[in-house]
């Protein structure tokens, strides 16, 4: 597949597939969607445009840490997610915002609903910024950055699942 052939619809299909894997907690399969050098980041809500090397983030994982995160979440002793949250993600306003020979930049809005045990609904709203790499196996995630809209996490509690 060459990157020129890739349309917004292809990207949407890919993101919907990813969302399904995450909502269904098929985390090992989700890992397959990542490149070997993937990063997963959530900046703090008061510094959304900052760099994890000089600002405190909520999450700033490299590929090794992402795998460790999944390993942790697969363990029933990750108490924050045992029993697991039920999540439902809505993805929209998908745009290809840049492309070069091997990668696409993609922006998408999200609304993630999370229910857990008896706690009230927690509703995460924001935007995904992806760097997707075009590989022989199809699109793969090289970077997944999440910009949260709330000015503070406030009543959202911990981000113990993959947002």
């Amino acid at each position: 597949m060459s990157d020129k052939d890739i349309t917004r619809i292809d990207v949407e299909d890919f993101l919907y597939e990813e969302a399904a894997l995450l909502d269904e907690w098929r985390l090992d399969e989700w890992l397959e969607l990542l490149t070997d050098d993937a990063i997963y980041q959530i900046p703090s809500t008061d510094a959304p445009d900052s760099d994890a090397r000089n600002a405190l983030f909520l999450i700033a994982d490299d590929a090794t840490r992402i795998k460790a995160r999944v390993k942790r979440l697969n363990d029933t002793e990750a108490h924050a997610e045992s029993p697991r949250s039920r999540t439902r993600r809505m993805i929209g306003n998908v745009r290809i915002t840049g492309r070069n020979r091997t990668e696409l930049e993609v922006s998408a809005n999200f609304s993630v609903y999370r229910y857990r045990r008896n706690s009230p609904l927690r509703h995460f709203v924001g935007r995904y910024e992806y760097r997707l790499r075009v590989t022989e196996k199809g699109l793969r995630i090289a970077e997944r950055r999440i910009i949260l809209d709330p000015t503070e996490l406030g009543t959202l509690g911990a981000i113990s699942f993959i947002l």
Partner: protein
Amino acid sequence: MTESPFIIDQPEDMVFRLNRRTLADPEILTREQTAIFDKSWIYCGHESEVSKPGDFCTRTVCGRPVIFSRDSAGDVRVFLNACRHRAAMVCREPCGNTRRYNCFYHGWSYNQDGELVGVPGEESYPPGFDKANFSLAEPPRVDSYRGFWFISFNPDITNLKEYLAGATEYIDLVADQSPSGQMEVIQGTQEYDIRANWKLLVENSFDDYHLLTTHKTWLDYMKDSGVQVEPPKGQGLLLPSKGIGKGLGNGHAVIDNINFRGRPVARWISIYGEDAKEEIDEIRAELVERLGDERAARVADTNRNLVIFPNLVINDGSSVTIRTFWPVAADHMKVTAWALGTKEESERARARRLDSFLTFYGPGGFATPDDVEALEAVQAGLATWRETEWSEMTRGLNKEGEQLNTDEEHLRAFWREWNALMTADA
């Protein structure tokens, strides 16, 4: 019916019990606002957050909106963020730099020193109206220790240094990490909430008893990364090999451990990567040169979780964390956490420090979410406080002298002070 006591503290009988009502009853929270928060020195901000004249950060302290700022003379000032006309907040930005605090409601404006300098249609006020009487109000007491600024709504409170008592030693151990003694708050604030009583986070912040069970997955992660997770044996240093827990006076308390999880200052672990070794050696060499062998080892090879009564935590471990928290309700708190670094550290050292912070701490860390879950599980269980009145807090009570970090002497120290303040007027 007489109320049962908040704590039963009879060490001679090996009894220390905590009344669960203290963590669940909304009436207690109402009393805490005046008996605890309005009586104590409360952390407001760090000097580095307002480094230039006109810099400000707005925040809520003891339920009051305040402006933590630097005035035209370069001094740190705290103003109550309420217009002297009719009380509207005069500053609604989280942080920034300004020449004036403008109240948009009717247009009064204040300078960096809090003086009222502009009143639209001033001529309509009767004779005797004097702008000099309407400067922004300030909390009755404002004071700092090594860059940490506190305020108090208790005009009669003892001075800050005396209040901090034994905690100053532990703040010094943080500030001494910087060659110039200057630490700075790094940009990026973690703000999250926990559906639990605020005092449960006091306990949790230095409860080392829960590490093995609550943080099993974090320990696994450390092991997987090649970090030695067992405390080294027989390494006396200044502490018993497993660490100590102790009260520091006035309700402050600490756990003080031999480090085994790595410290950006200045103890290497495999997670930092081979190429970090050299720089960490250099950081350590600077410490030794400036502080001498023994003090350098104290700074670099121990980690310490410090609670400053009532609601400030400084965790000096895999990174330096400032954490404060406020009750929203008896069963709900909001938490704010910042990372603190030395002013002089290199870009690489800064990045390493931040990365190290996130492996454990914060709402997306490998440990904090499980603490949040633990506290929420406790709070849910506390709904039974009328049936099961007492929590047990006696670990180490039978020991003479030093107690371990996994004992509960430091928790008892907090609760004794809390109890003393809550029963002071009774």
